[in-house]
């Protein structure tokens, strides 16, 4: 790529002053001198390279695999040899909604529970902690490290903490504190799929899934806290002071001044919350995926990975996940662009 960066280029540094009709002296282009380009040829090649390389990577690493997944969802294939690939039309999708429908609906619902929990509990809690810690408490750095630790910990450690230290029925902290370690008296935190919230006859939020959601919130809070700590630093303190002088109380200052001025962070956090809840996989996997705790990404990997891969069905689950993601992406992009236009 050209190293003639835009800042060293006289044309571009002059860019701000130019109107469309102002001729550029350095590089006149076009016949009759009526139209001039602002860009030199090296600018053009730079811009081409800077868009073409990421675009090519994006197409190769995102869209071609996505298209491949879409195509494979119409096959029955074990992933071993191309010769064993059979085209089966819509069969996998039909089976998703007739044979494996309980798995599918349960997973969609579980993804939704995660999203609701992170949005209404995890994110506000992270924001709250960040707000408190931003007040220069004594030992703030220690608290920050403690709350951020779950994000940094290796998944193997996270799995150990929740499975063996917290939720173990015979030896776990929770049952010990509650005095429920005796035989027949133990609370089966991770194994009991009884409903906390029932949806329809067969579906709902399982007790054990709620236990997993708690672990997800535990990680999410630290992540959100760090983002908001950075966001809060950028809020102009004079705005707060002005609002306080005008008689606003703490909550009003936060609600009407601080939160709106952190809009870019809010959007990032919202996107992260949605993405995290759609792609949640790891924590469920390290806790051994107890019954009733499937989510879409678990169904995808269970089918495609594993020793007798069922690539067709796994891909069909993948396409469902892709469509769900599309819904959120479209909503987000429409909002983003409509605001730009305004």
């Amino acid at each position: 790529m050209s190293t003639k960066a835009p800042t060293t280029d006289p044309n571009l540094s002059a860019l701000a002053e130019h109107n469309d009709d102002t001729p550029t002296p350095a590089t006149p282009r076009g016949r009759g001198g009526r139209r001039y380009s602002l860009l030199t040829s090296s600018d053009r090649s730079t811009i081409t390279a800077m868009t073409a390389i990421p675009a090519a990577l994006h197409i190769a690493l995102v869209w071609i695999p996505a298209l491949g997944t879409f195509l494979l969802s119409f096959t029955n294939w074990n992933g071993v040899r191309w010769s064993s690939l059979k085209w089966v039309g819509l069969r996998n999708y039909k089976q998703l909604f007739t044979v494996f429908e309980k798995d599918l609906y349960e997973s969609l619902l579980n993804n939704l529970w995660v999203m609701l929990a992170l949005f209404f509990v995890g994110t506000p809690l992270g924001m709250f902690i960040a707000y408190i810690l931003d007040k220069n408490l004594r030992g703030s750095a220690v608290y920050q490290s403690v709350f951020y630790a779950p994000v940094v910990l290796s998944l193997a450690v996270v799995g150990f903490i929740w499975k063996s230290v917290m939720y173990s029925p015979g030896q776990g902290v929770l049952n010990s504190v509650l005095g429920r370690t005796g035989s027949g008296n133990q609370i089966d935190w991770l194994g009991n799929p009884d409903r906390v919230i029932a949806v329809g006859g067969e579906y709902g939020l399982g007790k054990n899934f709620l236990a997993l959601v708690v672990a997800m919130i535990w990680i999410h809070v630290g992540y959100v806290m760090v983002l908001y700590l950075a966001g809060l630093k950028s809020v102009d303190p004079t705005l707060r002071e002005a609002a306080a002088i005008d008689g606003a109380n703490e909550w009003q200052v936060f609600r009407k001044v601080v939160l709106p001025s952190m809009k870019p962070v809010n959007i990032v956090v919202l996107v992260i919350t949605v993405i995290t809840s759609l792609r949640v996989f790891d924590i469920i996997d390290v806790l051994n995926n107890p019954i009733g705790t499937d989510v879409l990404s678990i169904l995808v990997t269970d089918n495609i990975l594993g020793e007798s891969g069922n690539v067709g069905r796994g891909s069909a689950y993948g396409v469902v996940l892709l469509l769900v993601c599309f819904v959120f992406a479209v909503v987000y992009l429409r909002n983003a662009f409509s605001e730009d236009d305004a």
Partner: protein
Amino acid sequence: MSSLELPSSAYPSPTAWGKHLSRRQVVQGGLALGASAVVLGACGSDSEDGSLNPGSASGTLTIGSNASDPDPQAGLVAVKDTFPNKDVEISINTLDHNTYQENINNILQAGEDDVLAWFAGFRNKFFAEQGLLGDISDVWEQSSGLGEGFKAASTASDGKQYFMPTNYYTWAVNYSKKLFAEKGYNEPQNIGELLDLADNMATDGITPFAFANDGQWPIMGTFDILNMRVNGYDFHIDLMGGNESWTDERVRTVFSTWESLLPYHQTGANGRTWQEGAAALETGEAGMYLLGTFAASASDALAADMDFFNFPEIDASIGASALDAPIDGFQMIANPSNASAAKELLLHMSTPAAQDAYLTKDPSVVASNSNANTGTYNDLQKKSAALAGAATGISQFLDRDTIPDFAGECGNMFAEFIEDPSKTDSLLADLEEKKVAIFADYS
């Protein structure tokens, strides 16, 4: 974007780092040797025609291994060290147990490892039928001391052998010798005596059966044994092979029997690891525990105190001579870089010398070769060998006897069943529907 991709254990302890390095070196060494073996193979000397002629092979050979626990890992090294043909340079490429299993498809096709650790029965046949494994019938012709049961478990649908069994263990009802002596309990001979024993334990304030199902595989053993006692070995294998219906009255009987036994089991099994179940047996909280004899490896105290009995007969016309005894061993990839050395090694693995060497390092299993030295066996090994030797039908455990995808569905169904047995009929109907779909995918 995920929190989990951030650098995690940036400062591992020295021991962790050391282990990490050594494993990586093992893998890289394996890759390098595998690559050089390809080069050697390509040169093609006359002796490398892939035939089995003990002592004639040379060159390099790589064993792919899932023996990531210390004992099995040391055992495999011992097997390698006793290989008599020193012209063959063998390297061992060890992967984490679960990683290995999930990636076996890729490992088989990568061609870096010539000989791979694996399981007998359906899971070996599955790959043989995909054309991913090499025929080792000639190795079987030259081997001796392996029973017919082992041969059957190593034979694919084309009648050829694709597997070399090296050792196995048994599933049975484990108990604490101390507790049985203290309370005057005796090993039951039939289901009536078992129920009486369970009632006595309950009266004594002991939970009759420890019960754990974390990972959704341990209680597959309970289903296996009940199905084999109620319906017999042949029906069990047909059911696993997808040839019988799960809505059949006979399967329903198994679940009714299981339901009647559930009150004798620990509650909340789905969130309990098998080690926690073993801990309940060790402390005397529970009196019996249906699990593989590996239960003894949960603690040294349990290993010293544990004994087991075969699950007693339920139906006198069926008897009690079938059981789960999963067989481990090795298979060869379809196009090994050094077939003659690979076959020579597999032949060596079938011998008492190699198996004795393995068992000195890993005494939790039993040798497949009937000529292996049983003098060094501990009581559990002796009893396991006697039990399997007397068995008329040996199954490999549910997740080795059927398509892995379907085994996962069975695991889910059993887990839901023990939570709420009243749903049995709808659970079975659902499982049958999935069975039809999954077996159609692999037909």
